[in-house]
């Protein structure tokens, strides 16, 4: 789906940045790249432009510009209620974070089950039951 179709509060992961020339390059320079996590912060009074949060920065994009960005909708783990089974999509962190999460069975593509809600969260992975803290749950994105 297109980035412009995402609703306020929702999160997506970029799959493709289309367009050509200046607009294409500017989107890329702002860090909107395949794999980037992007959240809709709010709409302006006329619904256009839209404010997004990307890599901890707030950016305003016109709808016509957000149309160039293809995304998949994802959910930060802390927002998932207990009882749901979800697939891990993205770990938004450095090498250590990815390694630590991998050691308890949380890595992209893996299915996990939420036992108790955030935070700390109790989850069941292929490697057993584990606790996930707030600092971690906010950086794990699932679908």
């Amino acid at each position, binding site marked *: 789906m297109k980035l412009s179709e995402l609703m306020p509060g929702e999160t997506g992961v970029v799959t493709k940045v289309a367009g050509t020339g200046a607009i294409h390059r500017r989107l890329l320079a702002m860090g909107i790249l395949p794999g980037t996590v992007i959240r809709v912060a709010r709409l302006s009074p006329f619904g256009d432009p839209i404010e997004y949060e990307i*890599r901890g920065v*707030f950016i*305003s994009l016109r709808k016509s510009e957000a149309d160039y960005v293809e995304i998949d909708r994802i959910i930060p783990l802390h927002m998932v209620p207990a009882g749901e089974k979800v697939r891990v999509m993205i770990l938004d962190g450095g090498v250590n974070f990815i390694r630590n999460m991998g050691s308890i069975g949380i890595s992209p593509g893996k299915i996990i089950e939420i036992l108790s809600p955030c935070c700390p969260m109790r989850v069941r992975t292929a490697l057993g039951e584990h606790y996930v803290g707030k600092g971690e749950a*906010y950086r794990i994105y699932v679908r």
Partner: protein
Amino acid sequence: MLIALAGNPNTGKSSLFNAITGAHQHIGNWPGVTVEKKEGTITFEGKKITIVDLPGTYSLTAYSLEEVITRNFILEEEPDVVVDVIDATNLERNLYLLTELMELTDRIVIALNMFDEAKKKYKLDVKKMRELLGLPVIPTVAIKDKGIKDLLHACLHGYFKPKKLSYPEDVENRVEKLQRMMENLDLKNKRWHAIKLLENDSEVRKKFANLGRKDILHEAEHLRHEIEDIYGDDIETLIASFRYSFAHGLFHEVAEPLNVGGVTITDMIDHVVAHKIFGLPIFLVVMYLSFEFVFVVAAPFQDAIDLIFNGKTLASGQHINGLIDISYHWMASFMPNWASSFINYGMLRGLAAVLTFTPIIMFLFLILSILEDSGYLARVAFLMDKLMRKIGLEGRGIISLMLGFGCNVPAVMSTRALKNERERELSIALNPLIPCGARIQVFAFITAIFFKHNQALVMWSLILLSMGVVALLGYVYSKTIFKGKAEPFVMELPPYRVPSLKGIFIHMWEKSEGFLRKAGTIIVGAAGIIWLLAALPWGVQFGGENSYIGQIAHFLAPVGAPFGITPESIIALFFGFFAKEVVIDVFYVLYGTKEALFAAMTPLQAYSLLLFILFYTPCVATLATIYNETKSTKFVLFVILEGFALALFFSFLAYTIGSFLGVGG
């Protein structure tokens, strides 16, 4: 020694520049363009250092003027050190530009600015960052003058052994292949050129075409397609991804986020200020308060300057001498009367007029700096974008248009906030059509005499008409003469910050000084010319029937007739060109009393005159400022013609329809 400051917008680069150079700075334009160039010279450890502030950029592509200026400066002027000013609170995105800078030069010092704020957001390991980059990394807090000495010290004695970003092997091979083809060329930094060629950079491609090296261009294109095939995406996305993964990796090596998932103060403020519904009313209140502040606070200063120079005529008709009168009498004691009159009532009065503008300009830029430096201006752009885009401007365009209701001079100066050249010009072309405070004063004076019972209605009709014309012309211009290619409006909404006083005062001083020096000369000159027209031939009543102005008015009388405009009004309009409020004085001089003025025109003629005053040429000060901002005589002529065309059209229309219907006659 030459140091260049580079960095993203909103990183405090200007504050850092101010902190380093203090008052020793010079502001001009980059050659051939209106992008501002700031330079300063200081002495540090006995060495003379020139510091150049490069435009703020997010990357170094060939798509924007600022980016081309930045990279060409580094490539061609070869500064001894490039300081990359990084917003430490926004490290990852800022490191992207660093990856590009590192491809251009080895001699980079990193200023980790706003380090105090960043420490609240992450645990930062500066030492590790130094090691990983092989470059000096200096924490700074520019608005508190912290870290400046360390930064300069690093520029002089730093150790530069950069560990560069290397691309995946399939890309590196191809970069090297292109580099080898450039062996015989006299080019600085071949690696950078090779990467840019792979990236399909239009400027660099042009360079090679001019060198007659089609073979390299062909090879680059071939290699580019190979890379795109291997990775299955376009080259721009790929190169940006490689650079970002370097930035991302480095960021996570040196920064450990604290307080994940917390809500920031900025987000809380924006929850109200940038709100879908509350945002607009809050903006209007902010504008209203800013406006009140500027014009209410500036007014006594303006009155004082006026009183000191021009004195005051009391209701009893007695005149208290001002400096100009005193100087006139003094000079008249040793030179002919006409010469003293020319110097004092011509030139010196012009100078006084220039000075009365300065309080508005100073206070206005005080407010504008606060709005900009605090981060609110970016929210205005966000809130108003959709609305203003209809008339071809981005959201920030609303500010200069609204300021026009106060005074067109600072309003035109404020268009600098618009980054897009085309939008700036459009905004300048529309601005004089907004009735300034002086014109509104004239409207109030005339409507009070002619439209006692529906003064407010007539006033509003003029103001709404001007807004309608601005909207319509903005729409038409943006589709025709000011048409431009769509430029990206990807804008950062920076965190709210308390602006630094130093930055605000430097900005205020720059603007006022620039106005006094540049526009001032033109205004004083024009005042002299108007004096000559009103005073010659020698011996006539000043501005009277027999003066050149009177003669011109007489000559133009038949032209004024179809609009119901009297010869006396033409004289008043002439003086109004100098400063709009003078129209009132001229009417007093020519008619003596309000009753006589009321008897001289029908209400319809008065309305036609009001429409004429609304649009006809902007005052000399505004034109001088427009010239100053555009450096184009053609543009100034365009604005004058535009004004006259609208003035003639609307007065003719009103007078003809009015006469036909028999109203107001």
